[in-house]
């Protein structure tokens, strides 16, 4: 019958094994090679520079290895204040986003799809509009001669123009505006995917609408809410533009401090140390988020 070269190898027990293994490796590396250009770019423009910065944070001004930047962070109270303000703004923003965003997501999830999709454009529009433009819009609206004050006075709500901007209030308003879509999207997605029959079952079993909501609906939306909350919080931690523009110099979050250290004081050591701490905090919260979301999924979205 047919005689092929492989017949010679067949007697050796594993015909073509070596060749097949070479082919496998070649294919694997060719596919991974596709990621090479992107990898190179990210490595050169980010990983290495950030690593460099890491290294900088451990160098004293005279070039020797030292922890003085970190020590200064612990000793000087101004750093503590910076972190305090950062957490304060982040927590407040997140809380307000939840209180405003959850109800909106709920109403949207109850609407028929067509209308909901239309409204989602309203939620997405801020997403696609430049951060700077939105922050500027608030600056204009909240200033002493701005729209909000003008209407407030015209409608007799208050007499003197309120200081709505260049302070914490203005910063919060701006940040909530920026962060809301980040909360609404995962919560909305979660709500849409919910099985409506569960609520019917709850009603059938005797739950009033309010109890059905708190006992059935709300727990099942916790994964989405958790995801949204963590996304917003983590984004707030590292935020720069809005506090810089709307804070008027009174709201100095960690990122603003880092920028100031570089631009005003050329203090690379302090800035890089702060950056390292910010990065570690961010990674910690992301790890926490990953743990919580997975845990939540394992528990099926709640006790019981």
């Amino acid at each position, binding site marked *: 019958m047919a005689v092929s070269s492989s017949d010679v190898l067949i007697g050796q027990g594993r015909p073509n094994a070596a060749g097949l293994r070479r082919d496998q490796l070649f294919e694997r590396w060719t596919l991974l090679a596709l*990621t090479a250009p992107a990898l190179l770019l990210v*490595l050169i*423009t980010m990983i290495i520079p950030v690593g460099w910065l890491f290294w900088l944070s451990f160098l004293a001004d005279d070039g020797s290895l030292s922890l003085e930047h970190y020590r200064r962070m612990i000793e000087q109270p101004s750093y503590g204040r910076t972190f305090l303000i950062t957490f304060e703004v982040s927590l407040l923003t997140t809380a307000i986003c939840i209180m405003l965003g959850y109800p909106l997501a709920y*109403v949207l999830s109850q609407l028929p799809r067509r209308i909901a999709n239309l409204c989602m454009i309203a939620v997405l529009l801020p997403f696609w509009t*430049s951060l700077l433009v939105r922050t500027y819009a608030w600056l204009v*609206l909240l200033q002493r001669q701005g729209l909000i004050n003008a209407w407030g006075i015209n409608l007799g709500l208050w007499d003197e123009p309120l200081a709505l901007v260049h302070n914490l209030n203005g910063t919060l308003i701006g940040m909530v*505006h920026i962060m809301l879509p980040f909360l609404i999207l995962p919560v909305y997605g979660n709500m849409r995917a919910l099985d409506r029959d569960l609520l019917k079952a709850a009603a059938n079993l005797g739950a009033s609408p309010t109890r059905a909501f708190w006992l059935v609906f709300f727990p099942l939306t916790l994964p989405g809410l958790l995801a949204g909350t963590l996304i917003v919080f983590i984004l707030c931690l590292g935020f720069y533009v809005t506090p810089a523009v709307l804070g008027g110099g009174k709201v100095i979050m960690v990122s603003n401090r880092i920028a100031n250290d570089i631009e005003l004081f050329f203090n690379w050591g302090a*800035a890089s140390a702060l950056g390292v701490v910010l990065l570690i905090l961010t990674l910690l919260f992301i790890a926490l988020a990953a743990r919580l979301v997975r845990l939540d999924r394992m528990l099926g979205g709640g006790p019981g």
Partner: protein
Amino acid sequence: MSWLDEPASETQIPHRSRLWLYVLAALVLTFLVVPTLIVVPMSFSGSQYLEFPPRQWSLRWYESYFASSSWMQATVTSFKAGALTSLVATPLGTMAAYGIFLSRSRWTVLLYVILITPIIVPVILVGIAVFYAYVRLSLVNTLIGIVLAHSMLAIPIVMLIVTSALKSFDMNQELVARSLGANRLKAFLSVTLPQIRFAVITSAILAFLTSFDEVIVAMFVSGGENSTLTRNMFTALRDQIDPTIASISTIMIVVSSLLLAVSQFFGRSRKD
């Protein structure tokens, strides 16, 4: 008003009992949309203090924008940077997404994580790190420098979108194409790419916007002749509220909205 007594949900709660919810939702929705849009009419206001509704309608802030050579140069720089970023990040990100998606090696998770880091690391950190590196590489205030940094920021977005599209694509079609005689590249180009093109287009648009809207890295890395629009706006905002920014903002809103509409249009016709 009889609809108020109609049941609103599976639990048969009438609309009337949760009217407050609808009002709150409407207010939040307004809160989301109005501030962004209100800049548009205000930019036509004749007064220094940008009124709404404008007492006098005027184009003076547009004139001051188009007449200023520094604003115009910055605009050109931003468009150039955005276009180049899109041109760089889209193919790089798409290739990486495709390679990772098909590869079954244990390195893929690590690679994926590395390529996602630009959106995880706080932008301020990226900004000063890149600045630090660029000072040593003489890339500060150059177009290439900005494009490289912005491309790095855009790659995760391209990857996420393209990966999602690949997941819902039937890879068997590529296999069939190869069984019919196409090599891997031809199979990708003639079968896979046409079917994920909407994802690729959307990610290209988002890559453009990532660069166009970016402030922080641009603040450190762009400057002089190659200063971006957003950098100049930011600097102007911190010094005093120059109303010209209102007209620039309007133009940026129009650009963003147009691009959003374009991407939605493409995305929709695929799903329907």
